[in-house]
């Protein structure tokens, strides 16, 4: 390779690395800024910061309005995830035993179905039966919304399982239930956990579906912030909560990738 060629390939490499780091900056900038500005020592968002303080984090815990909606979100995501895991496990087991493309497609369909459309239909359904605004309607809708994510992960871990272990358990005289409980479940448990965390986060951060079908009494943190932002702008308590949530999600993502390599389930 001559001098010019070396210089050219060096320049191309520098360009490539520069572009990559710019892209990573693009990916992280909004979350980073969100965390930084929550420490602002001022009544409103401003940049550069007026000073560094923790006072909005203290305020955040005292303001029961926002705390209430965060607790609501946590509760909703918990019930939806629990319900979804309970109905996904048996369904996944059946689909693993006896493949059915049709049933699998139906169960994965919400993944490809625009949420707005489905939410509109649900709004009308709940309205017809006079159930609008009930907490249980939110739980059921979120359950279906997150089921495809959980189902995909559970099915994949079932299919990666060594099926000889199951046969061995049967041939040693274990019944179906005890084979499930003592052989299959322990093997697929990491997958079930990963799926549950996926589902939990998706339910916790949802805006669209909840926006259509929740009432002001039981609304979640994201929907509350969305509607407030549109009418009266952002306040520092919201930014403090957002910073904390972003940080927690970062830690969860890191742990999930480090210990379960969960990016491969996408």
């Amino acid at each position: 390779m001559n001098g010019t060629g070396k210089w050219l390939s060096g320049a191309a490499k520098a360009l490539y690395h520069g572009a990559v780091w710019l892209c990573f900056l693009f990916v992280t900038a909004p979350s980073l800024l969100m965390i930084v500005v929550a420490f602002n020592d001022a009544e409103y968002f401003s940049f550069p910061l007026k000073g560094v303080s923790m006072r909005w984090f203290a305020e955040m815990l005292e303001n029961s309005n926002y705390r209430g909606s965060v607790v609501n979100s946590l509760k909703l995501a918990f019930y939806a995830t629990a319900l979804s895991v309970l109905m996904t496990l048996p369904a996944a087991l059946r689909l693993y035993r006896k493949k059915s493309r049709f049933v699998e497609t139906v169960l994965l369909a919400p993944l490809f179905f625009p949420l707005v459309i489905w939410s509109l239909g649900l709004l009308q359904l709940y309205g017809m039966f006079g159930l609008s605004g009930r907490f249980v309607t939110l739980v059921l809708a979120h359950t279906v919304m997150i089921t495809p994510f959980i189902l995909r992960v559970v099915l994949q871990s079932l299919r990666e399982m060594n099926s000889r272990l199951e046969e061995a358990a049967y041939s040693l005289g274990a019944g179906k239930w005890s084979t499930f409980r003592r052989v299959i479940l322990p093997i697929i448990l990491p997958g079930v956990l990963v799926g549950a965390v996926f589902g939990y986060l998706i339910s916790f951060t949802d805006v669209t579906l909840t926006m259509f079908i929740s009432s002001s009494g039981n609304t979640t943190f994201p929907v509350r912030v969305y509607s407030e932002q549109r009418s009266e702008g952002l306040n520092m308590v919201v930014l403090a909560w957002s910073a904390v949530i972003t940080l927690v999600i970062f830690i969860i993502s890191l742990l999930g990738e480090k210990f379960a390599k969960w990016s491969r389930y996408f």
Partner: protein
Amino acid sequence: MAQSSRTTGGRRFGVGWMLLSPALAVYGIIFLLPALLLVAISFQVNAPELYVWERAYSLGNYERFYTDPYFLKVIGKTLVYCAVVVAATLVIGYLLAWYIYKAQSFAKTTLITLVLTPLFSGALLQSLGWYLLLARYGPINAGLRAAGWLDKPFNFLGTDAAVMIALVHAFLPFMVLSILNSLRTIPANLPDAAASLGAGSWSAFIRVTVPLTRGGMIAGSGLVFGLTLGSFATPGIVGQGKIQLLAQIIYQQAIQVFDWPFAAVISLNLLALLAVISGLLALLTRKTGGAAQ
């Protein structure tokens, strides 16, 4: 029957459906029924004050939708958004996926985490971040003014470019992971084989690696297309009500105007559009032989 269900013959019939029925029942009520209801309601003459069984039916809503240039313009605009966002996420996504694929242990985990965090923190928190970044007194304005490129603060919020950038950012992780996972299925020694046959690293990349990830690229594009088509929170916050995409219009018709039948008509057209595009993508996948994930 309870006895025979222990044997294989009985299991095929009874227990199987028992395992599926909770999921299918919930889906039937919460997913299928609303979709069917939407079709029925789209033919109703709007009359919120009447009971469901008292309402009249007509094709009027559809006629209004197809003849009003405003809604056709919104569809066109939304499709332009979809095209821009898919193209941008494809290019940036491939770059990032390739870099992550080549990175080693610790760096790899960290970089994947950086991509996963915006994905998991959802549309709202990310668009709040963009709202702050682009605001009149945000860091981008501060930076541009410090550099002397702007003499007074410019409100980027509510512009098409701002919403597109925020949407590219929101859906980029899906594209990165789609491509990354298809890169992971390439046998590790294949690019080496290409190199040993005399291909330079660039030509091995273009002629061996890229074609093998076509499935991931198509799957990612389909996903990003669908997500952009139905995007709601991001255009709402970054667009500040000045950017109206399809999902926003549906919400407006349903919640603010209370015209549910018309909102249903818009929804069904959105769905038809999505079906056509997915069909084309599926055809493309089959033709190129790439495995969609």
